[in-house]
């Protein structure tokens, strides 16, 4: 990653943003049906990342892994709110309403994630940990090392979850055939 040794981290964060915001939006597009939801959750992730960029240490993992770790927390928090109060969007209501063109754009992204959404649905027999491993590596394009960092587990554990999940999916696929 290019470093900005001469001043603030704005340029560096911009690089992180540009490289990953599409993947983060896709992550939420696999989970939501409403463009505004995708926008708000993506915004929440990016804003949290911007606010804690000084704590990011690239020795611990890539920026992508770090961002997906934040995205996972945002999603978990959002789900908890939905479960608790059915009012999660109130918490995210600080974000702006989308322009029509942005709604179209995010709706297209949601449509484009249909295959990924179906794969996640197929993974319903897996544990949450195994699903997360499959998604980050096979859908979100993280390396196993990045996925391990994003999930906060050792690489060996990630590899084990991944292997177990793929084996179960292959078995399930054969049964379906």
């Amino acid at each position: 990653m290019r470093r900005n040794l001469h001043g603030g981290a704005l340029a560096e964060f911009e690089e992180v943003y540009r490289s990953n915001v599409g993947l983060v939006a896709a992550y939420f597009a696999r989970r939501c049906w409403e463009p505004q939801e995708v926008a708000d959750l993506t915004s929440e992730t990016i804003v949290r990342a911007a606010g804690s960029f000084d704590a990011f240490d690239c020795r611990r993992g890539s920026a992508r892994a770090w961002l997906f770790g934040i995205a996972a927390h945002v999603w978990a928090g959002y789900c908890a709110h939905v479960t608790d109060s059915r009012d999660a969007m109130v918490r995210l209501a600080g974000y702006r309403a989308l322009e029509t063109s942005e709604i179209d754009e995010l709706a297209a992204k949601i449509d484009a994630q249909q295959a990924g959404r179906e794969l996640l649905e197929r993974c319903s027999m897996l544990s949450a940990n195994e699903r997360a491993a499959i998604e980050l590596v096979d859908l979100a394009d993280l390396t196993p090392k990045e996925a391990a960092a994003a999930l906060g587990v050792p690489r060996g554990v990630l590899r084990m979850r991944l292997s177990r999940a793929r084996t179960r999916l292959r078995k399930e696929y054969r049964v379906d055939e």
Partner: protein
Amino acid sequence: MSEFEDNLWLAVVRDHADELARTERTGHHRRATHPRLLAGTTVGLAAVVATAAALLFGASTSPQAFAVTRNPDGTVTVNLMHPSGIAGANRKLAAMGVRAQIAVQAKTPPKLVCPGGTAPTITFDPASIPTSQELVIAAGQPDAGNAATLKAGIKGSGNTGPGDTSGAGNHVVRMYPGGGKIRTNSGADNHVARMYCP
């Protein structure tokens, strides 16, 4: 990037540029720098700066990309020749204790040059920026009238104060505490002041 991503980036810059600009990275460590200088502590620094040079060019990356000048009347003039000068100009503004930052946006044109090769400029009075707020200047696409423009808005909560510009052509953006919004001589929309071609 997509329009949503562009707009989200603008929002990040608007709300977090200052914080990020003050985040230093040395080696593999990131750490927050000291809190921004308070307005009161900048007076002496500003005086030193004002007597030191008329134009303060960035000493590091792009010496020709920007200039930040403290004028004798206390106003500050920012010239931006190239987007690469934004970071340097922001560092200079921060070092001067001026609560103003130029925002980076995805659609910033690759060059910011006025007819005749001059740099787009904006002059504002830091003393009139409300204490709890910050002037945010976003480099924008050149429009038909001016070869390049900057849009300025206020970061922070609360009222931004009624204001006007003194002199011709948005030379000074005045903001006063109390109700109301920024207004410019050009009749531009509230919360918007434009960098103009001199």
